[in-house]
């Protein structure tokens, strides 16, 4: 008598699909639109695209940092200019007061 596993193997043996299965598959393949992305499916193309995207991200990130630096620099210059103006005014007032008290 066959073992349990042999019975299982027999119950789950391969079955043939309908006789016209191959023809139906080939008909569907013929009717299916041609994939234009076959070049993209090549591994080297995907690698090049990934490297280009990484480079683009790196350059973009550097540019953004540069822009942020420039912006911070101009803000500091503006702050220094405003502070300088205020200091000038204060200095003039101090000079006026000193001049008055001397005369």
């Amino acid at each position: 008598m066959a073992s349990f596993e042999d019975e299982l193997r027999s119950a789950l043996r391969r079955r043939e699909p309908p006789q016209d299965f191959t023809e139906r598959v080939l008909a569907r393949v013929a009717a299916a639109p041609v994939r234009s992305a076959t070049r993209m499916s090549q591994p080297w193309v995907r690698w090049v695209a990934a490297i280009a995207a990484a480079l683009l991200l790196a350059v973009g990130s550097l540019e953004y940092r540069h822009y942020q630096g420039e912006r911070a620099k101009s803000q500091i210059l503006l702050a220094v200019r405003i502070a300088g103006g205020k200091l000038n005014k204060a200095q003039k007032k101090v000079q006026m007061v000193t001049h008055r008290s001397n005369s």
Partner: protein
Amino acid sequence: MPPRAPAPSAASAFDFASLVRRHQAMVFSIAWHLLRDRAVAEELAQDVFLSLHQHLAEMESAEHVLFWLRRVTSNRALDVARRRQRRPMVSLESAPEPVAVTPTGDPLLGTALKKLVAALPEKARAIVVLRYQEDLDPAEIARVLGIPVGTVKSQLQRALALLREKLSRVVGQASGPVPGKE
């Protein structure tokens, strides 16, 4: 052991029609055993081959094709089974039985086993089908289904114990001891 495809040297060497003829029984049977619905299994098998045709340029060897077909068929059939989340739409008794390649074993026992396998949870069913239809070892099943080997081994053991127990309850009393349990 299912027949292995001879190894063509490059993807360009693949003749699609002969690939379909060589692997159609394997693809259809995995879908049929997992879904127990002939029409759905046939449609799924056609979809798998259509997808293979679209990915043919990526195939590196005959083994790659075989592995790809097993993986894609199993995963798609599991997806369909999970989506349906119910038992077969047509009962096994009324469903037309596909043509058997080499009918062996006890037909009554076979029918009972098919019923019991169909009642297993989807993942366990896929493991049992890949083990006994495709004769894959646990490591190969793990690669096909993308799960750890330990999970395959434990699920397979549990499924076999469950099948043995249920089979002994279904046919054991009527026709004597269950094979392999004497």
